């Protein structure tokens, strides 16, 4: 299973499970009906068909119910997304610079690194810069992704709650070595992080 390293990841996963549940229900419903009808009304068992040109009540039911369901799902997605779209004001800002085909992270004190070190339980805002083509900052364990585009000021944020090392991908195709344009996010304790940040 995929790691759940942020609060956000948990709420995304809950939404995912709700939608998977609804989807499985409808898929099983449709498939069962298809198979049942094909067997029950096969030409052998039912040599003469009955013409039913339609049913207004049914049309209304299967328009209204899906409408309500999709509006509900839309709302789930939007409320989660709202959280992701508004980074807390006192976040620590780290600049991620994407170039073909590597990541570079710059900290407030000017320190630079190839690996993204962050302290646990701290709001981190990532400013995204691209020096050449489109890239995308993607940490599956955090369920966040944001494009790093040249001349566009994008940013995203997270608050990692679990210590550990998580893969960071480039998710937007960017040429020859796109696939290996990977790095790591190392979530460490506050002390460890401060030591690392102040070291050369």
């Amino acid at each position, binding site marked *: 299973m995929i790691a759940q390293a942020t609060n956000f990841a948990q709420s*995304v996963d809950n939404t995912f499970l709700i939608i998977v549940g609804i989807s499985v229900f409808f898929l099983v419903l449709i498939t069962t009906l298809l198979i049942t009808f094909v067997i029950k009304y*096969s030409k052998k068992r039912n040599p003469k068909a009955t*013409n039913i*040109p339609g049913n207004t009540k049914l049309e209304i039911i299967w328009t209204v119910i*899906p409408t309500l369901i*999709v509006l509900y799902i839309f709302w789930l997605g*939007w409320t989660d997304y709202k959280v992701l779209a508004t980074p807390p004001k006192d976040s620590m800002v780290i600049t991620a610079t994407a170039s073909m085909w590597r990541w570079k992270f710059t900290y407030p004190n000017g320190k630079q690194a190839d690996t993204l070190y962050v302290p646990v339980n701290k709001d981190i805002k990532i400013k995204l810069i691209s020096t050449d*083509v489109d890239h995308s900052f993607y940490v*599956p364990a955090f369920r966040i992704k944001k494009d790093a585009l040249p001349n566009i000021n994008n940013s995203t944020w997270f608050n990692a709650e679990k210590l550990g090392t998580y893969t960071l*991908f480039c998710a937007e195709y960017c040429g020859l070595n796109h696939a290996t344009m990977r790095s790591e996010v190392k979530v460490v304790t506050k002390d460890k992080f401060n030591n690392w940040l102040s070291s050369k």
Partner: protein
Amino acid sequence: MADNSTAIKTKNHESYLDYKGKHSGLLGWILSTDHKRIAILYLVVISAWFLIGVVIGFLIRLELLTPGGTIVGAQTYNAFFTVHGIIMLFLFVIPGIPAIFGNFFLPIMIGAKDVAFPRLNLLTWYLYVIGGAFVIIAIFLPGGAPDSGWTFYIPYSIRTSTNMIITLSATFILGFSSILTGLNFIVTIHRMRAPGMGWFKMPLFPWALYATGWIQVIVTPIIGITLLLVIVERVFGVGLFDPSLGGDPILYQHLFWIYSHPAVYIMAVPAMGVITEIITVYSHRTIFGYKAIAYSSLAIALLGSLVWGHHMFSSGMSDTANFVFSLLTFLVAIPSAIKVFNWTATLYKGSIELEPPMLYALAFIFLFTIGGLTGIMQGTLSLDIHLTDTTFIVGHFHYIIFGTAGFGLFGGLYHWFPKMFGRTYNKKLAKVGFWILFTGFNILYFPMFVMGWLGMPRRSYDYLPEYQSYQVISTVGSWILILGLILIVYSFIKALRSGERTTEKNYCGGETLEWKVETPPIHENFYEIPIVTGGPYEYKQNELEPEGVN
């Protein structure tokens, strides 16, 4: 549905396959303005491109069998997925069903002798062939095959040294082919329906083509102009999209998806039309919810043209834009759901024959439902942030595009093959081919959902070892799928060469006009233009207690 009352006498009584016009032999085909011959021309070239696309798809899957290099280098792999996308989309599924079955059956189903502009129709085929030739040139010229992905995202497509300009020109030309086909069908449907055939007496495949025609005419020029602007930017250095010239890369993404999202419906809606015909014919009963299906095609065409932004949720569009595009995306799910429910209801109390076309139609509903439901997951803003640009989306659009346009095409070809060629095919072979294809399809594409959820980025030559088990399953699926395709192609070739000849007009008990004309149809389709009195799917003689014979 049609009386034999007279209208206009046609001159020629020969099959369109034997008809001798001004030219004979090959010229009699490539200079023919007969919509049926043009349909066959399209069928031949589209099939060839499809097979090339399949081979490249096979190579992509083979490369992904192991992390790192398996059979080719990264540059070649990147060219593979780019060319696979260009071929499958622009040369296979976008023209696909409208160009083959639309051309062949639209005039027949509405009781016309040909389309409104037969010469323009032939021109579209030439544009299509020229566009295809450009793609071949782009692959083999010294600069190297295009490697930008079929989306041509800027700035990469401006910077790459591969043959981008020729590739962009190819899609520009193919766009015109598509626009002119759409225009032709719209005019044909407006002006050439048989006497008595009101809009709601028209079969649903023409309805689907009508909705598709409008999408083609309205949105295709946008991609044409956009790609032209990219060429201008590349050649003359005018800053439009490239940030280093002061342009806006997100503007490019908008303009690209304003066409390329509705293009999904250019692929899917005609296929929906095909399987609507198949389901009613092999259920031997009237369609359930005729108007709901007809209107939902139009609703999909309209709403589908307003949801392009859902390809860009992570691009940095404003939150308002994300809100609106997500909401509209959910709304487009509704007419799609309505269609699925009406198709399913059409089976109810039918008298169902599980012929090969019907198997494809049922599989279509199943695959389209999975594709649609995973589409809902991706329309959900918070989920899409995680899922976009992973293999989840690759699985999703193969379920939607291959599952609809591909299965619709095979189903339609089995359905209409004897009508088109006057030969029958081996049903057993067709069914075996179907089941292998269907099994392979799910083994190939379903693991992509799992991998994508686990974070595997798409368009990746290399991957982490944790994804390998899914990649291997998917690759094995591709072998099974291709085995199925080989059997299917073999079944058609065998039918063409040695299938039993048939002249039976209505071999499947259908009621639309193509089942009233000769098999194969004569040059001008009808001896007399029919006069239509009833709806397209009455199936009165099949009823439990017949109310009277039509």
